[in-house]
């Protein structure tokens, strides 16, 4: 093995090293100076991002006996994950300090989760994928429980852990079947085995595939494996929900694309129908149930389920165009999701969580700027142009139509009209109702600045979406 090859795996190694540094440094930082841990973590993220950027491979590189891959997709997803994790840390800092749960663990677990995500995006074998997934999942379980005195947080952590363990079990069981049938764990070898011997494309492999899809659907929060998602979104402290709602979606996308497209692309006919059922159910259940919610975190949870329907329908097409559309959708959706949880954090203050829809009453009178930003985010999620959410939907609908499913395309647009209602409801509370709570927002200037950048990004990306679309097509074309 050529040691120069290891350079392609440098981002993970760098991050792991930096995490160890932060871990040790955090021991010597007392609660009053906890913000140093934050800055150290941010510095680690910046260094990691620089390493990812610097080690971008010219072409696809496969390492460690075929268990690790570095290609355009992994680069884009890794950079995206680093940015979103950084964003989550930024929003979290003041909130954690004000609510006296400012512990180093939030950042450390966040960094470990990021490491898991990066391993997942670069996995080229089922085992690597599983290891990355567990690294991420264990960090997330602990993150949800970070405020251990909070009963709902503890309860949702428990629920998340138990259900997550079952899903991981399903995934592992599916992996064992696929390994048993094809004789390999590596995606390219699995694909080659299926091409070489078409008789493999039969019941035993389909059986394993079904369990893999259960695992994937669970990680995405696709119906009917979505039960954990609203409870965890609502129960976790808002910065944790923000973390959960952003970067891990990119990892889930990697999970789906690597396994279904790289590994089992030959079984497209079989898995596409299963994915379609999950996707259509997610679209309907997510958007319809969200209407009835009064808790905004729970509502955004159901809305996530609806968006997952769109992402899965992109993958469902089985075309490069569809995969690129799913990637574009995920990246841009996560920008809006991070921003909207960011607004909830900005509205919160000590001992008070702005988590009911009515807490947004009259926000336009209290802070026209934050209300405007939230409006941008909501219209983006609803898919109203010129915000970027519209272009995400456009790409997926276009992919579905060109794959020859006009009925699905109509269903998608109708579901987004249903979805528009609850996003409009937020705007209605912000703009058309009187404020009950006249308190001035306490967010610090830099948090407001980051929030502004985040929300204006959905407008800017909507006005110039071309480069990101081209990038998505380039890495998946």
């Amino acid at each position, binding site marked *: 093995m050529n040691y120069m090859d290891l350079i392609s795996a440098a981002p993970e190694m760098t991050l792991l090293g930096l995490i160890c540094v932060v871990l040790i440094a955090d021991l010597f930082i007392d609660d009053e100076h906890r913000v140093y841990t934050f800055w150290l973590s941010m510095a680690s993220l910046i260094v990691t991002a620089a390493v990812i950027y610097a080690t971008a491979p010219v072409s696809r590189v496969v390492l460690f006996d075929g268990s690790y891959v570095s290609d355009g997709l992994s680069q884009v997803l890794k950079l995206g994950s680093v940015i979103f994790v950084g964003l989550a840390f930024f929003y979290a800092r003041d909130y954690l300090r004000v609510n006296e749960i400012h512990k180093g663990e939030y950042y450390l677990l966040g960094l470990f989760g990021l490491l898991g995500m990066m391993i997942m995006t670069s996995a080229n074998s089922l085992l690597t994928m599983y290891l990355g997934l567990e690294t991420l999942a264990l960090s997330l379980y602990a993150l949800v429980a970070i405020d251990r005195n909070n009963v709902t947080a503890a309860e949702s952590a428990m629920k998340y852990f138990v259900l997550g363990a079952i899903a991981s079990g399903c995934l592992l069981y599916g992996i064992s079947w696929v390994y048993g049938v094809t004789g390999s764990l590596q995606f390219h070898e699995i694909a080659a085995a299926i091409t070489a011997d078409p008789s493999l494309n039969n019941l035993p492999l389909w059986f394993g595939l079904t369990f893999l899809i259960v695992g994937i659907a669970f990680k995405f929060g696709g119906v009917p494996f979505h039960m954990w998602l609203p409870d965890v979104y609502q129960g976790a402290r808002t910065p944790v929900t923000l973390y959960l709602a952003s970067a891990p979606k990119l990892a889930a996308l990697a999970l789906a694309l690597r396994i279904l497209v790289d590994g089992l692309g030959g079984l497209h006919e079989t898995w596409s129908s299963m994915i379609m059922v999950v996707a259509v159910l997610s679209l309907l259940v997510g958007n319809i149930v969200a209407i009835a919610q009064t808790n905004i975190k729970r509502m955004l949870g159901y809305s996530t389920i609806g968006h997952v329907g769109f992402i899965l329908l992109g993958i469902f097409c089985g075309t490069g165009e569809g995969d690129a559309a799913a990637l574009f959708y995920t990246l841009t959706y996560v920008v809006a999701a991070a921003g909207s949880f960011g607004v909830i954090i900005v509205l919160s203050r000590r001992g008070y969580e702005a988590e009911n829809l009515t807490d947004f009453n009259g926000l*336009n009178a209290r802070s026209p700027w934050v209300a405007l930003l939230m409006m941008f985010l909501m219209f983006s999620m609803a898919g109203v142009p010129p915000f970027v959410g519209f272009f995400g939907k456009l790409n997926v609908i276009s992919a579905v139509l060109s794959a020859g499913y006009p009925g699905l*395309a109509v269903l998608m647009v109708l579901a987004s009209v249903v979805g528009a209602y609850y996003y409009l409801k937020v705007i*209605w509370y912000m703009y058309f109702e009187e404020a009950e709570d006249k308190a001035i927002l306490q967010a610090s200037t830099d948090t407001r600045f980051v929030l502004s950048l985040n929300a204006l990004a959905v407008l800017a990306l909507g006005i110039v979406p071309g480069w990101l*679309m081209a990038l998505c097509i380039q890495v998946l074309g």
Partner: protein
Amino acid sequence: MLMTNLLSTLVWLPIIGGAALLAIGDNGDARASRTAFMRIVALAVTLLTFALSIILYAAFDNAATGMQFVERVAWIESLQVFYYLGVDGISAPLILLTTFITPLVVIAGWDSIKDRPAQYFAAFLILEGLMIGVFSALDGLLFYVFWEAMLIPMFLIIGVWGGERRVYATLKFFLYTFLGSVLMLVAFIYLYLQSGSFDLFGFMNVPLELSVQKYIFIAFLLAFAVKVPMWPVHTWLPDAHVEAPTGGSVILAAIMLKMGGYGFVRLSLPIVPDGSEYFSGLMIALSLIAVVYIGFVALMQTDMKKLIAYSSIAHMGFVTLGMFLLWHIAAETGAGLGMTGAMVQMISHGLISGAMFLCVGVLYDRVHSREIADYGGVANTMPVFAAFMVLFSMANAGLPGTSGFVGEFMVIIASFKANFWYAFLAASTLVLGAAYTLWMVKRVVYGEVANDQVAELQDLNSREFIVLAMLAISVLLVGLWPAPLVDMMNVSIELLIEQVGQTKL
């Protein structure tokens, strides 16, 4: 520089102006000087936009076929989307209407808007830019972006500054129109996959089977019928109009309804000519129902704004009637008459309905009631206002010499050439329109002074006078001398009819 980017300037100047107003913001500072500053900026921007559109009018070549002032830059390369603007004789008059009405709306909101003026004027400026964008976009996706984005400021205008049931009305408005338009998006994407780009001319040239054309026509129909609005998808309009602030009602009636008619002309007819022919009978039937049935509904209204809203639906019935008569008239006897009538009717209805809503606004600002029963004998205390109101009502009823007459008369003549019964039903508007409008005028303007509030009314101030006088002049101008307007449209309409005549099967 200006001439090559004239359309972009028209689109972006108001949007940037609106964004600037938002950036300055209200900041909870309710001082009069700040409010005054906001509205002066808003007025300056809209007047400048109007001045620029006059340049557009002056430089417009009536004899040229095809698009003028074309701008074309790649926007999203992977989807072959272009930032592609241009106008012809069909869209240019509508842009002029937009730039003419918006400053009047700003002036109309001068004193009556005290709550968050910066946001109010910003919403109207951004809306103006987006509406001009809809009328000048020649790329399907760009058109759709402007078309949908337009809903956002209107949603806020009705919801924030509207009447009592504003939340219900604005949600209904948004969801109704959003539902109508999303299927148009699916149709656009289908056409893109067939033709390889979102260029509207590419859409027009791509051959399509009749069954596909029917589906696409239905998708377009849902989008445009909701906007026009046609019976039976008109129910959002009375609610939206009644609850909207005066300015919102004016923009809604004068311009946003025209988008539906414009959509039929720009998209439905040339892109799916055979589908349009297939459904033309249905379209004529729906239009006639709108003219007759909605006319009767208008007769029964007790709320002035509702009455004018229903009268708008009835008048817009003439627009769709004129367009879809095309296949029912032999070409040599002047198939263009109905189409020209429809286009003139759009402009004229824009002026008249805007003026009518402004008249109601004038009364509402003073009495805070829209009920006909709360008024009576207004002519005694507001003679100047009464004169204007009577003039606009006559125009609304289609009196010769006003703009209302020209378009309706052309459409009725055209329908005579098609079928006597079409003409018979269409002509019933001359009776019905006169009945509901003049009966309202009789109850509101004439008679004894009804109550103390009416007795204390002040006549128009100079600001209101200017607004109504501008509209009165234009209504009479189009009515007495429609030639400049018709000349502007002629070449484009001939081209359109030629295009629609060629089958795409």
